[in-house]
């Protein structure tokens, strides 16, 4: 790691931390008895989860008829929620993989929690297609195992099957990535623990001793996983977009869907990371590790991806007109001015217009505004999927089939239940694992700690400006 850092860069760790203080600050929350707000949050999460489980049970027992789907609108909240959660599950692996490959040091403050969030979000997402099958006990049919059903195979031509492969691969690699990062940190927790707790963390850390060889292997594994995860981040939402774009439904069949879905997924994922991290850093007192500088960087990503998504919306709208194809034109007319106009309006307002306030530095650095924006963005991204799915289906080629759809209490309950599941898992996670990657934060202390950064970096920096790089002689 290069020690030459421009004095223009802001510190990423504040409070003049030592290595020991970093360990103390990050590990100690797992060693204390949970406080009242955690317990209250946990009870609320479990209660919500239980209601969701009840609704799922009711759906399975009675059937999909408990939802308000009809012959015209065959996909409603279920697939909307599925795509929404999958989208949220993109930021974690993006932060860990792509930002690792790009050597972005600010990722170290948020990567651990973001990866955990990814895994939980993908679990929430996976629920919906399973339930939507109607006969959940036949769910194993989607796996192309050597079957006993004679010539009956899964439909390899269907993007829905590709989803199964893409998401299960993504989930596996994300889990491995998250766990790999946790290994040295579990060892740190173990070294401070006693008794059974020590044994458990020793088991979880695979007996890590911190030898040079361990670190070397750990670093190569991280890089390999990053290399594998990078195309996966793109592939998952690309294939989710194929669920729609391979069809010939006007409004769905458009070639920009793959990259536009990926950008939207990163957008919503970062928003969810912000929502969680703003609360977590406050409650666990991690303001020195997840600084305003981190929040500003994430807000810039939100602004960037929000604008990319905005470009895609306008491209779609324009090309719908340009196509000269009346059904395509009607699909977009219907989105913007049809019966579901309010969802299109919500989507545009939350996803494209509101992030533009982040052009102003003051707002990018405001915790208060960021928190509300992060929720806004996720509302907007939910609307986006609802617009694409329900609005498009509500008006098909035959006016006699035109329909309107509102969810039943069961559908709403299942959606709430996924929040319960997500929060339950997240709350358990903050209790048992270090929420910030200890080893990785330590690796950037000497370049990005506030006692080494900005004015404190200047004298070394000016000296290095005129010094030749060490590996000069190897250059051709």
């Amino acid at each position, binding site marked *: *790691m*290069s*020690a*030459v*850092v*421009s*004095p*223009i*860069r802001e510190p990423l760790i504040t409070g003049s931390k030592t290595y020991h203080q970093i360990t103390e600050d990050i590990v100690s929350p797992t060693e204390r008895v949970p406080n009242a707000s955690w317990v209250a949050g946990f009870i609320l999460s479990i209660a919500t989860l239980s209601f969701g489980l009840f609704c799922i049970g009711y759906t399975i027992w009675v059937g999909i008829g408990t939802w308000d789907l009809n012959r015209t609108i065959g996909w409603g909240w279920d697939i909307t929620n599925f795509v929404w959660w999958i989208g949220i599950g993109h930021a974690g692996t993006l932060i860990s993989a792509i930002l690792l*490959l790009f*050597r972005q040091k600010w990722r170290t403050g948020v990567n651990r929690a973001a990866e955990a969030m990814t895994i939980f979000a993908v679990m929430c997402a996976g629920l919906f297609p399973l339930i939507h099958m109607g006969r959940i006990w036949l769910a194993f049919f989607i796996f192309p195992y050597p079957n006993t059903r004679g010539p009956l195979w899964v439909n390899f031509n269907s993007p829905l099957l590709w989803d199964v492969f893409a998401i299960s691969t993504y989930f596996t690699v994300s889990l491995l990535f998250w766990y790999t990062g946790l290994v040295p940190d579990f060892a740190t927790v173990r070294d401070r623990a006693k008794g059974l707790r020590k044994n458990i963390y020793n088991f979880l850390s695979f007996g890590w001793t911190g030898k040079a060889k361990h670190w070397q292997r750990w670093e190569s594994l991280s890089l390999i996983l990053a290399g594998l995860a990078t*195309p996966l981040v*793109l592939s998952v939402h*690309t294939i989710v977009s*194929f669920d729609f*774009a*391979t*069809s*010939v439904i006007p409004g769905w*069949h*458009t*070639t*920009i*869907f*793959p*990259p536009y879905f990926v950008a939207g997924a990163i957008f919503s994922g970062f928003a969810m990371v912000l929502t969680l991290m703003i609360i977590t850093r406050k409650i666990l007192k991690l303001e020195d590790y997840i600084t305003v500088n981190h929040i500003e960087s994430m807000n*810039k990503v939100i602004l*960037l991806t929000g*604008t*990319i998504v905005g*470009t*895609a919306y*306008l*491209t*779609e709208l324009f*090309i719908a007109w*340009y*196509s*000269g*194809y009346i059904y395509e034109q009607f699909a977009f007319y219907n989105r913007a001015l049809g019966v579901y106009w309010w969802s299109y309006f919500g989507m545009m307002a939350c996803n494209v217009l509101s992030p533009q306030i982040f*052009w102003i530095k003051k707002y990018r650095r405001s915790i208060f505004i960021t928190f509300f924006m992060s929720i806004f963005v996720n509302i907007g991204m939910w609307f986006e999927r609802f617009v694409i799915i329900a609005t498009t289906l509500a008006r098909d080629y035959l006016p006699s089939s035109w329909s309107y759809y509102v969810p039943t209490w069961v559908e709403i309950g299942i959606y709430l239940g996924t929040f319960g599941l997500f929060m339950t898992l997240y709350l358990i996670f903050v209790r048992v694992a270090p929420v910030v990657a200890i080893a990785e934060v330590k690796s950037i202390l000497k370049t990005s700690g506030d006692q080494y950064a900005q004015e404190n970096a200047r004298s070394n*920096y*000016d000296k*290095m*400006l005129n010094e*030749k*790089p060490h*590996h*000069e002689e*190897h*250059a*051709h």
Partner: protein
Amino acid sequence: MNQFTFEGREKSVLIGGMILGLVCLVLSFFIDGSPHASEIHSRFWTNFLHNAVFFTGIAFVSLFAICAAISAYAGWYAVIKRIWEAYSLFLIVGLVMMTVIVIGVWGHFHHLYHWAGEGVTTVGSETYDAVIAGKSGFLNPTFYTVATIGFLSVFYFLFAVPIRRMSISEDKAGTADYAIHRKIKVYAAAFLPIAAFSSCALIWLWMMSIEPHWYSTMYAWYTTASWFVSALALTLLTIIYLKSRGFLVDVTDEHIHDLGKLLFAFSVFWTYLWFSQFMLIWYANVGEETTYFKTRRDEYPVLFFGNLIMNFGLPFLILMRNDTKRKFGTVGFAAALVLFGHWWDFFYMIKPGVIKELSHAEGAHGALPSVAGFDYPHLLELGIFIGFLSLFFYFVFNQLTKATLRPAGDPYYAESIHHHS
């Protein structure tokens, strides 16, 4: 060796290349087997449009890359920023070249754009085309002119020139106070959304409208990715050449390695966009859309598969390993291949479309005629490519003489020299 000198020998070689290109371009005016060649000289005009768009786009994405790097607080790129600055200034030549196309639209000197033909949007006319008439709010000579000249002028005069000027003034201002850098950041951030929206319109007008019935929402992003890979490849080739002359001592294997990684990553990204566009159109199998790929795959297989081999297969295999991204031989070979490959990609996007429109305008159906200079790049086309490439390098080398190659006033310069990939 921080001050680039443009040697007489280099000038002679590049001027020689330009003369060769000019001769080939003039020859393609006369040696042309396409329909109505004696009146509209499609081989000449397609060659001109192809190269003009390709190199203008490289200048545009270079400016975009500078702005993206500055906005993202990228440190590594400071040692090569003079190269991208020089590329971005080529926008002025692009403006001149595209103005020639604009004049051709008004004067009906060429028939690159069927929508600009006489009577196409007039009800009752023999050549009336209802679909094109529906698009005439966008596809019309006035908007083409305003967008081409307007947007390119904004890119050049409001962004490329001021950013370059501020960057040079930073050389003298020293490192104590980063006021100039803060000002550059404002320009850089403002350029990104402006460029993102306006470049889409330019790509639709310049290229997608060649086949005015066909449309794809991916097209603009796909084209931009192609430009970006080309710009990266050219950057690597320029660095290798400048280092062979003893310049750019601060650019090390680490920078080459990172550029190699970007070349690899964006070649894959380009392929991703290629595949997404192709797959969705192929899968849905709607005649109005498949015509684009069906024509190219069935009747231009050399272009179709050559595109994928040069821009995906070979760079993917060559740049996969760690060491090949660091060695000048392999990374230089891959860069040259990919540069040619993306020039080929633009050929593939433009040329079959023009032949198709010309044939269909005559009422022909079925297989398209195979026309020299449209089926794959012939010697004349290669000569023209060399000519435009020489022009580009002549311009860039001339710009490089105007400022130091070691912009030490950049707040990230020391970080960049000591960069580890």
